[in-house]
Structures are given as structure tokens and as C-alpha cells.
């Protein structure tokens, strides 16, 4: 219970900072929208091609935008050495990891809802009948991305070349989320959501591994 309470305190703090500053939203949403519009225009007016490529473009936009979100989530901890304050607090450091991941999750889900709206409008993607599978794919995929990003975000803060190190660490690790998310989204939008079970299971397994890994090792990453 204490772990959950401390995690909620960290998440509430991060969400309040984001709500006030809109640092991530200001950078991430225009970025994702630009990616989708540019790809939509470059693929031409063929509706079938647009609908076939839409799930992959959607997840690529989410993945690249999430990298910006993770960096921003730790920026507020670095600016005035606030991360040291969290380290020196007598709390389980896993609460910091879980709280930051939860806050990033909420932000990314809001971004995904907006991106999905853009894709549905521009690419003519049908989201109606596959909505439950689509929602499951995005929630599970986002939890996995948030776990990876929150775990490696703190490693990145101590790296000298932080701008280049972070994508190198996160993007390869996020590949299973990208594959599972794209496949589940494709099946859901094609009206074959019932066949997406194995891809959703892949996302569940990924989430379990990285949430557990983050909870266990985050403390040793922030400690000297």
C-alpha cells in the first residue's frame, strides 16, 4: 500500500507539472500530427494503401513521440537536482519508477487518442467495431513503452551524450511493442479483432517483464 501511495504522489506531481507547463504536449502532439500528415500526403490518395499502412504509421508516430515524452519526464528532475531529493527520501525507489511510468502512460494515452482521431479522419481508418481490441492494444503497448522509457530515462540522465544515447537504448527494446501493436491494430481495424489474441499476449508479456524489471532495478540505477 505504501508503495502505491508513494507512486501515486510521484505520478500526481508529474501530471501537475505537465498540466502546468505542457512541455511534452507542446512538443509531442505537433510532432505526431506532422508525421501522420506527411506520410498520408506522400502515400497518395489510394484509400486501400492508406488503410493498410495506417496502423504502422500510427505506432511509429507514437513511438517517436514517446521518446520526447520520456526525456521531458526526467527534465524536471534534472533542472534543479530534484532527482537527488527523491533519491534521499526514505521511500522505495520503485515508487519513483512506477509513478513516472504512470504519468507518462496517461500523457501518451491522451496523445494516442488524438493521433487515432487524425488517422481515422485522414486515412479513412475504421475504428468502430474493433474498438475493444484497439483499446487493449494501445493501453498494453503504452504501458510497455512507459515502462521502458521510465527505466532508461534515468540511465540517460547520467549519460554524457544523453541526447543520442536514449533512442539507441529505447528504440531497439521497444520493437516487440511496435510489432505487437501494429499487428493487433491492423487486425482490429480490418474487423478481425478475434485473431489478435496472440499479439495482445505478446504485449502483456512485454509489460510484465519491463514493469517487473523496472520495479526491481530502478533503485540501483538511481543510487550511487
Amino acid at each position, binding site marked *: 500500500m505504501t508503495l502505491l501511495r*508513494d507512486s501515486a504522489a510521484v505520478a500526481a*506531481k508529474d501530471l501537475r*507539472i505537465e498540466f502546468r*507547463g505542457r512541455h511534452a504536449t507542446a512538443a509531442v502532439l505537433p510532432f505526431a500530427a506532422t508525421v501522420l500528415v506527411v506520410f498520408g500526403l506522400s502515400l497518395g490518395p489510394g484509400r486501400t494503401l492508406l488503410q493498410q499502412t495506417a496502423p504502422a504509421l500510427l505506432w511509429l508516430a507514437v513511438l517517436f513521440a514517446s521518446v520526447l515524452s520520456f526525456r521531458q519526464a526526467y527534465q*524536471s528532475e534534472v533542472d*534543479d*537536482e530534484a532527482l537527488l*531529493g527523491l*533519491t534521499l527520501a*526514505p521511500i522505495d525507489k520503485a515508487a519513483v519508477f512506477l509513478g513516472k511510468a504512470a504519468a507518462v502512460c496517461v500523457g501518451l494515452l491522451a496523445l494516442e487518442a488524438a493521433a487515432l482521431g487524425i488517422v481515422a479522419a485522414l486515412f479513412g481508418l475504421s475504428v468502430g467495431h474493433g474498438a475493444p481490441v484497439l483499446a487493449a492494444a494501445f493501453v498494453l503497448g503504452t504501458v510497455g513503452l512507459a515502462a521502458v522509457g521510465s527505466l532508461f530515462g534515468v540511465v540517460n540522465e547520467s549519460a554524457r551524450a544523453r541526447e543520442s544515447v536514449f533512442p539507441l537504448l529505447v528504440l531497439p527494446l521497444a520493437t516487440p511493442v511496435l510489432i505487437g501493436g501494429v499487428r493487433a491494430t491492423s487486425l482490429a481495424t480490418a474487423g478481425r479483432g478475434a485473431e489478435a489474441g496472440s499479439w495482445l499476449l505478446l504485449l502483456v508479456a512485454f509489460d510484465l517483464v519491463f514493469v517487473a524489471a523496472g520495479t526491481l532495478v530502478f533503485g540501483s540505477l538511481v543510487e550511487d
Partner: protein
Amino acid sequence: MASVADPNALLADPRDDVEPRPAPAVRPRNVTRVFGVSPALVRATLSVDRGEIVLVRGPNGAGKSTLLRIIATALSPTYGSGSVLGFDLVRDRQRIRAATEFLGHRSRLYDDLTAEENLRFACRIHRIDGIGVRAALARVGLARGANDRIRTFSQGMRQRVAVARAMLRRPELLLLDEPYAGLDEEAKDVVDELIASTGRDGRTVIVATHDPARGRLAGRTLVLNGGLLHEAP
């Protein structure tokens, strides 16, 4: 009869049985910290009693911050051992942290939260009642700035908020690393008031500074130079 296996017992002062001397609040033993290949602190041994106010002086790069960060458990010693408030410096970090406040060069505040929100968050993660937040801000002269974002504060005002956080926590051990840097005289007096009130309550304070005009509250001065620690003459 004392056991031969316990040599300290043979040397013990018989008066210890009547009135045991309390363990020192801070007792690092032969602590060395190396960054890469450069030693920042070399075999530092120190004993600070409970209720003592100790000043650590030394030029920039002497190892003052390293010493205080090791005592605060923000850094691990490369070699050496020690205890803080009776707890092992390496094994009992959480227990030391629960009773220690470290105020460094940076105020460790969130720019997009208000002064009051920053203190309330600190209260939550330190498991203390947030009821005194407003009063603490008033004590450091920020009653009217409580709802302003930290982003709009000067360095001196930020440091005052950090001092208010230390007042709220009422730590057993207060560690201040260059607390006067960049402050005007009024803000420096606020820091001195924190040191004085902590000392009055019988709690321990270690202040590292190279400001020659400050530190008059300290009962003892240590000098750190080139990573080596010794008592001031």
C-alpha cells in the same frame, strides 16, 4: 570479569556503566572517495557529537561537498566505513535518510509547482504532516509567495523554500553544503536562523562553506584541503 575476546571491555572507563556517553551523531572512518582516478576525499575520519554545530571550511574542490554527500548517503564511499546517527553508512541508508536533511548548492525544487506544492510533495515523500507548510513559508518570509511558481523565484527565494523544507522536516542531522552561495544578507540570516534553531533543539548540524563571514554559530571548525580533513587550529 571482562572477557579477553573483548579488548575494549578491558579499556572501558568504569564511569561508563554509570553514565554511558551517547554515540557520536556522525562518525565516518577512513572514508575515501575516488571519481575515476581522482581522489576527492582521502581517509577522512570524523566524530561529531549529537547537538554539535560543526563548520567545515576549505577552498573550492577541497572535498567538502563529497564529504557531506557521503554522510547524507547521496554518495557511497569508495573505501572506508562509518555510522550516522548510529546507523551504518552503507547498509542502513534508508534509516539515515529518514532522519537527515541535506541542503546542497541546488534547492531541489520543481519549477512548475508553487512553493506550497513543492513543500507538500516533500512532506508526502518524507511521511510528515503537511499542516505546517504555510507556517514554515511564513518563517522564511515567503507567506505571500506560497502560491507562486518556483520558476518566478530568484535564487535567494528558492533557497528560502529549501530552508522551509528543512524546518518542516526537523531532521536529527542537518547537512548544509555552501548554503550561503548567491544569497543576499537577509537570506543568509534565514539560513543562520535554521542552523541556530536546529542547534537549540539539540540536533546536529554540519555546514560546509568557504564564506569567511559566516559560521559564527559553529562550536568547532574543521578544514578540508586536497581531500584531507583536519581540525582547525
